[in-house]
C-alpha cells in the first residue's frame, strides 16, 4: 500500500464528502427535492443495514450475525435504550458464535 495510494483515496473521499454541502449552497432546492434527498439518505442507510446484517463479502453473512441484528432491531422497536440495542445485538451474535452457530 504506497503512501500515494493512501493520499489519492483520502483526497477522493474528501472530494465526495464536501461535494454535497457545497452543492447544497449553490442551488435553492424545491421542497419536494429536499424531501427526496432526505429520503435518499434513509434509503442508503437501511440498504447499508441490510447488506451489513445479512452478507459478508458476496455471500450470506451467517445466522449468528443476522440474529444479532434482528435482536437489536426488536429492542429498538420496543423503545429500549440505544445502548441496550447495541449490547443486545453484539451479545446475541457473540453468544450464538460461542455456541457454534455460524
Amino acid at each position: 500500500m504506497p503512501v500515494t495510494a493512501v493520499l489519492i483515496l483520502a483526497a477522493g473521499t474528501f472530494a465526495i464528502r464536501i461535494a454535497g454541502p457545497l452543492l447544497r449552497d449553490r442551488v435553492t432546492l424545491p421542497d419536494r427535492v429536499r424531501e427526496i434527498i432526505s429520503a435518499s439518505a434513509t434509503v442508503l442507510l437501511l440498504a447499508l443495514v441490510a447488506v451489513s446484517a445479512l452478507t459478508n463479502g458476496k455471500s450470506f453473512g451467517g445466522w449468528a450475525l443476522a440474529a444479532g441484528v434482528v435482536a437489536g432491531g426488536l429492542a429498538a422497536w420496543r423503545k429500549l435504550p440505544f445502548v441496550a440495542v447495541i449490547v443486545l445485538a453484539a451479545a446475541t451474535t457473540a453468544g450464538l458464535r460461542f455456541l457454534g452457530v455460524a
Partner: protein
Amino acid sequence: MLLRDVAAVALGAAVTGASFGAISVGSGLPWWMPVLMSLLIFAGGSQFMAVGVVAAGGSPAAAVLAGLVLNARHLPFGLAVGDVLGNGWLARIVGSHLLIDESTAFAMAQKDPARARAAYWACGVTLFFTWNTGVLVGALAGQAIGDPMTFGLDAAFPAAMLALTLPALKDAATRNAALTGAVIALATTPFLPAGVPVLLALAGLVAFRSTSKKEEPCPSPQS
C-alpha cells in the same frame, strides 16, 4: 443522553479500529500506515477494503478505486445533512471530513436542526478520536488484539444504524422506498463490487414518489 448514545457507538468503533490496525500490520504494512490511512481517509469500510485488496495481491490502483466506489454514498449523505455543518469555510471543511455513516444517521434521527447539528458534531468528533486511537493501539499491539467478530461487533454497527433509522421509517413513503432499496441492494450484492449495491438502493426512491403522491393529498409538514 446523546453523548451516552454516541459513546456506545464510539466504543464499538474503537474496537473495530483496533482490529483494523492489527489486521493491517498483520498483512505486512508498517505500523504508521493504518494510522495515516485512518487520519486522512476516516472511512472504515474503505480502509478495510483497500488493505484487503492489496493483501490479496491486487494493485494499489484497484484498492483506491474500490475504496472510492464504497465511499460514493457520502455524496448523497452530504446533500441530505450538509446544512448541519455550519457556515464558515473551516466548519465546512472539518465537518465534511467527519461525514460518516454514523454522524449522518445521528443527525437524521433528530427532530430539529439545532439538535441535528449537535448530534452530527458530537458523533463525528468523538468517532474521529476513538477510531484513530483504536487503530493506533491495534497497530502497535498487533495480533494480541482479538477478532472483533468473536465479540459480535459486526452486529453492533448495523443494529445501531437500524435504531437510528427507525424514526424516519415511520413515514410510509420513506419506508416503502427504503425497503424496496434494501431488497435491491441485497439481491445485487452477490453479483456486483462492494458499495455498488448500496448505491443501487436509490432506485427504491421510485416507490417514494408514487406512494407519497397517492397517500398525501395535501402537503404534510412532517417529512
